[in-house]
């Protein structure tokens, strides 16, 4: 099963994609993914219900978040009420240690994203802040990466034995599925996603072509 683990909709301040249009795009272009996870910036979108869309298009559509920490941006999978009460998702000064700790306590998992990106990626903070405890997985393939950012992420992952996921970081419809994550078993719920990530059995994949890179 292949899921794009990093996407944004119009719920994110810089997102320009409607979720229905993502689904239409995936099906009309035969994008080789079975679903995607909406990781909205600095919030968890508790209101939106994509069950009907998921059924209509036979896709898995899950919800997560992208938060901002002292080590850059972090994807949080497995958001629940208890986790939302544990820290303010809108705070741009969260501590990565605090986010990881809260995730551990409340059955979620935190994954630093685009770690090779300047300023907002984890690699940029290691010199000053040291290697953070508790990180097991990072995003090693990001569809929006440029200037060798993925190579930096992958080198960091090798150095520190991190596992790697892939995600498109799509903000517009046509960018979905450029990178994704392959799982050997079905993942149809957030609980199954968190379990699969914790089990460590997955691989980042890239579907970038000269066309889809654009």
């Amino acid at each position, binding site marked *: 099963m292949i899921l794009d683990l990093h996407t944004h909709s119009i719920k994110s301040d810089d997102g320009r994609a409607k979720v229905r*249009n993502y689904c239409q795009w995936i099906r*009309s272009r035969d994008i080789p993914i079975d679903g995607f996870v909406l990781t909205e910036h600095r919030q968890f979108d508790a209101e939106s219900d994509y069950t009907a869309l998921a059924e209509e298009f036979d896709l898995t559509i899950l919800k997560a978040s992208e938060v901002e920490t002292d080590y850059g941006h972090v994807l949080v999978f497995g958001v629940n009420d208890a986790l939302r009460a544990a820290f303010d998702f809108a705070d741009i000064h969260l501590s990565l240690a605090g986010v990881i700790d809260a995730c551990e306590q409340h059955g979620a998992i935190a994954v630093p994203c685009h770690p090779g990106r300047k300023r907002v990626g984890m690699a940029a903070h290691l010199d000053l802040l040291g290697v953070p405890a508790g990180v097991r997985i990072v995003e090693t393939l990001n569809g929006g990466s*440029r200037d060798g950012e993925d190579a930096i992420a992958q080198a960091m992952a090798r150095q520190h034995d991190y596992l790697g996921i892939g995600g498109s970081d799509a*903000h517009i419809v*046509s*960018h979905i599925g450029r990178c994704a994550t392959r799982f050997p078993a079905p993942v149809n719920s957030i609980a199954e996603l968190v379990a699969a990530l914790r089990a460590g059995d997955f691989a980042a994949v890239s579907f970038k072509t000269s066309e889809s*890179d654009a």
Partner: protein
Amino acid sequence: MTIKTLSDVEFGAQLPVFAPDTSLENVRRFARAAGWDRPRFTNHEAARAEGLPGALVPGIMSQGFLSAMIHRWAPDAQVTNIDTVFRAPVVVDEVYQISGVVTDIDEEAGSVVIDLTVTNTANETRVFGTATAKLPT
């Protein structure tokens, strides 16, 4: 293929790609027309002195390129909204590609939504956004 009416458009249709003229001469001409005749857009040395990689193509010019692409594809299109995010500098005298794809068709409103991107030769996105355009029905 140029588009005349909404019924000519299919979901996922790719607009004809074009390579905009980002030469210093053309950018200078644009800057004069727009009243944006500032060194960071018209002089590589001055731009670098500001810490920039070179003279920049103004964001409004990138936006203009995207809008021009829509009109090249559908000459009678009326752009009713265009929204662009500038992710990385677009540098004068470097080569870029302007592309777009149709990602929504609203038959009731008679409009389409188009994903827009400006990419460099490494296929990295420098500007992205969306436009809504009304087409004759």
